């Protein structure tokens, strides 16, 4: 039944765990609406055939007014049906919007007209998103220019990617295979070329991928012919990369963070990063907050909004300078610094002009 309806309605494969339950509602709603519409239409046709004038001259017609009970029951019945659909649909929507706690988090940044993916272990890829089968994956997405929309028809998921915001989306792919990624929000001349692929790997292959071994393409026929000229793929995306923590350490050095923040527990111009994550911060206006990922990111982007008691508002904003992967990496690095290391490690303070973050480091992986 499921397969029959799916093919009837031209729906793509159900490749995520949630796809089939959404499709079941889809069939119900479409069947319900189409049957209802057909009945209404056929009744109208019947009336016309039955009450055609057939050259009878018009004298008068009876004044018929719908009895209130009839009107009310039609309205109530229809409304009830609609509300049930809303209820089920909204419950599913909430499920779609709430990622499981154990999801793998992958950062997505979109720009005209490409997708870039940054994995927790530090690897990045362009246009092709590698995910393991059988594990929930949460995408944390933002755009660098205009609004895009991340759409995987086979998974029945879609979410706009908005500049100035993080939006999230999650899915759990059922088995290894390849699926289209389409941009669904109009974003300019390259909108229809802004395509990518999700390659679902087996758990083992995914493990190899994040260690830098290029995975074999899955046996399944990719739904998009590889000859399509405008798909920017990077088959060998994952050269061995350092882990996210090391990446964050390098980024922190590059951006000059470590000239004010220490990693050995001693206070300096700014608060130390050791034990920062998860601690409760008190600000000079008397308020407090827990230093979670949100707080850390906010502190980089808008450092003067809240000043930790005892420090001066001297930190410049990194809004517009730090890229999401770097930001995420620095956050991961801070998270790793729960205890002061045995010895003091001083990272080389290279390539940073004295004036602070006025210079943007070149990024080898960024294909323009």
């Amino acid at each position, binding site marked *: 039944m499921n397969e029959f309806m799916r093919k009837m*309605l031209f*729906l793509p494969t159900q490749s995520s765990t949630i796809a089939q339950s959404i499709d079941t*509602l*889809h069939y119900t*709603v*479409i069947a319900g*609406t189409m049957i209802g519409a057909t009945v*209404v239409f056929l009744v*109208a*046709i019947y*009336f*016309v055939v039955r*009450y055609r*004038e057939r050259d009878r001259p*018009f004298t008068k*017609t*009876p*004044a*018929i*007014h719908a009895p209130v009970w009839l*009107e009310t029951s*039609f*309205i109530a019945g*229809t409304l009830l049906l*609609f*509300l049930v*659909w*809303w209820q089920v*649909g*909204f*419950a599913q*929507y909430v499920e779609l919007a709430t990622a499981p706690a154990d999801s793998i988090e992958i950062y997505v940044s979109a720009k005209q007209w490409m997708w870039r993916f940054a994995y927790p272990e530090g690897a990045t890829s362009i246009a092709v998103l590698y995910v393991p089968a059988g594990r929930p994956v949460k995408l944390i997405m933002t755009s660098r*220019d*205009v*609004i895009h*929309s991340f759409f995987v*028809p086979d998974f*029945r*998921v*879609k*979410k706009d990617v*908005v*500049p*100035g*915001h993080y*939006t999230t989306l999650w899915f759990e792919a059922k088995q290894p295979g390849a699926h*289209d990624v*389409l941009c*669904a*929000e*109009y974003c*300019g*001349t390259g*909108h*229809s*070329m802004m395509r990518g692929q999700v390659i679902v790997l087996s758990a083992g292959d995914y493990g190899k991928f994040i260690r830098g071994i290029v995975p074999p393409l899955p046996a399944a026929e990719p*739904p*998009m*012919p590889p000859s399509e000229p*405008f798909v920017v793929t990077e088959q060998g995306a994952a050269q061995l990369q350092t882990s996210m923590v090391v990446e964050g350490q390098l980024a922190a050095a590059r951006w000059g963070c470590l000239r004010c923040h220490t990693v050995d527990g001693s206070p300096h111009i700014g608060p130390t990063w050791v034990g920062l994550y998860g601690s409760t911060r008190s600000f000079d206006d008397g308020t407090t907050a827990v230093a979670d990922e949100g707080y850390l990111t906010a502190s980089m982007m808008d450092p003067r909004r809240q000043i930790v008691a005892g420090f001066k508002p001297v930190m410049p904003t990194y809004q517009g300078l730090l890229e999401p992967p770097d930001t995420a990496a620095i956050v991961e690095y801070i998270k790793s610094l729960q205890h002061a290391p045995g010895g003091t490690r001083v990272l080389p303070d290279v390539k940073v002009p004295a004036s602070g973050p006025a210079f943007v480091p070149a990024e080898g992986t960024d294909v323009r």
Partner: protein
Amino acid sequence: MSAESYLVADKGVKSWLTTTDHKRIGIMFLVGVLVALFLGGVFALLLRLELLTPGRTYIDALTYNRFFTLHGIIMIFMFMIPSIPAVFGNFCLPIMLGAKDVAFPRLNLGSFYVYSAGVVITLGGMLIGGADSGWTFYAPYSTTSPTAVAPVGFGVFVLGFSSILTGLNFIVTVHTMRAKGMSWLRMPLFVWAIYATSIIQVLATPVLALSLALIAIDHGFGLGIFDPRMGGDPVLFQHLFWFYSHPAVYIMILPAMGVISEVVTTFAKKNPLSYKGIAFSSIGIAFVGFLTWGHHMFVAGMSIFDTGVFGVLSMFVGIFSAIKVYNWVGTLYRGHISFTTPLLYFFAFLFLFVFGGMTGIAVATSSLDVHWTDTYFVIAHFHFIMVGGTLTAFLAAMHYWFPKMFGRMYSERVGLFTAALVFMGFFFTFFPQFLLGNMGMPRRYYSYPERFQALNVLSTGGAFLLGMGVLLTVGNLLVALKMGPRAGKNPWQSMGFEWLTESPPTKHNFEASPVIDRGPYDYHLGLD
């Protein structure tokens, strides 16, 4: 006939251009919207041609983007929004109320010139580069696009004021210009529909004007309030935009519903199954229509809370349309039905509206909308319900009121044929697009994966059929304008108040102010 008809009462081009006669202004709007329909249709066909093949067919992506933007802007702001209210509302509403004119005739003429100015500015913007932002003008794409977004946005802003002035005029007319004996519950259902539409026009359009002004100012001068680089939130633009643009859907469809109510009662010679049901559901739609704009934004980064609220409110607006549908069908019961071109358009309308409306309930279901939004499913949905509904009702009105406006009869045989052609064309254009949407083809795609091609070709074929159907329809009416037989005062034997006057009416509609002593659908009394 004691006095000359409005068509010949004054002579010369100047007498038309400076007229304050609501009927002549209606005719001038008719010419305007037909030109817009033609232009928008040409752009539609050009788009469908490009989509024949997966890659480039004959134009580049930027040209394609400009074309779909212009197609949307022309069809929505220049054709559908003014189509029924400004043409048939202007022509029929005062007559139906037993009034000599609308409340502010000079404002009415002003509205036509504002419309013309808006058209000139928008099309001028198109000549100096054309916008490529889509008719939705989403920031920040629209504000950073290198194309001429500012003039086009400003043109739409001006068109909006034409719409506001027309709506304002109708509200006041309905309140103050009703003839003696015309109680609220004796008003024709078309008047109720236009009245509800006018409320939306007056209260929603300024928000569109403001948001487009903000976009145009940002594009022209860099004063961005939605610019994420300055901390702005592009999603807020969508809130403002849809606060107008969702009710705008009802600006287009409510007058169509009004026309359909008139057509179905006239050709069934029956009272509507529930007059109050149809009349009050128009007001209900106008009101609840303001509460559902967020269902365009389920995946836009809006909160879960708002998704729930807008989802449930959207279901309520569907109910009001369902009330109307039940009533129209019920009106046919035990009627005296004559099968004419307007009635065939009623069936086309019913089909497109019911199936399109039902898919609307489907897309309002939050989790299903995630897959469908921004795909061809949505395109097909709104073309069925909004374009199909408005276009078929507009053509129904053109045929139904043609003898009223010009005093001549069109060829019924050709009319039925072209109506069937329009319907078939429409169905084959947009039905494949539902399936394309299910497959996952996003909207505004210049090129697409090959698996979408077969359905796209079918859709393009349908579009040309539709274009031919509309051309033939207009041709049939143009022939009738010159050569049609005289229609007589009331060729449909309708009890509607607009048929109490001569066809075509005299300059002042009524020799003496009429006194209304019955309802417009009292067919149980028999014809006068």
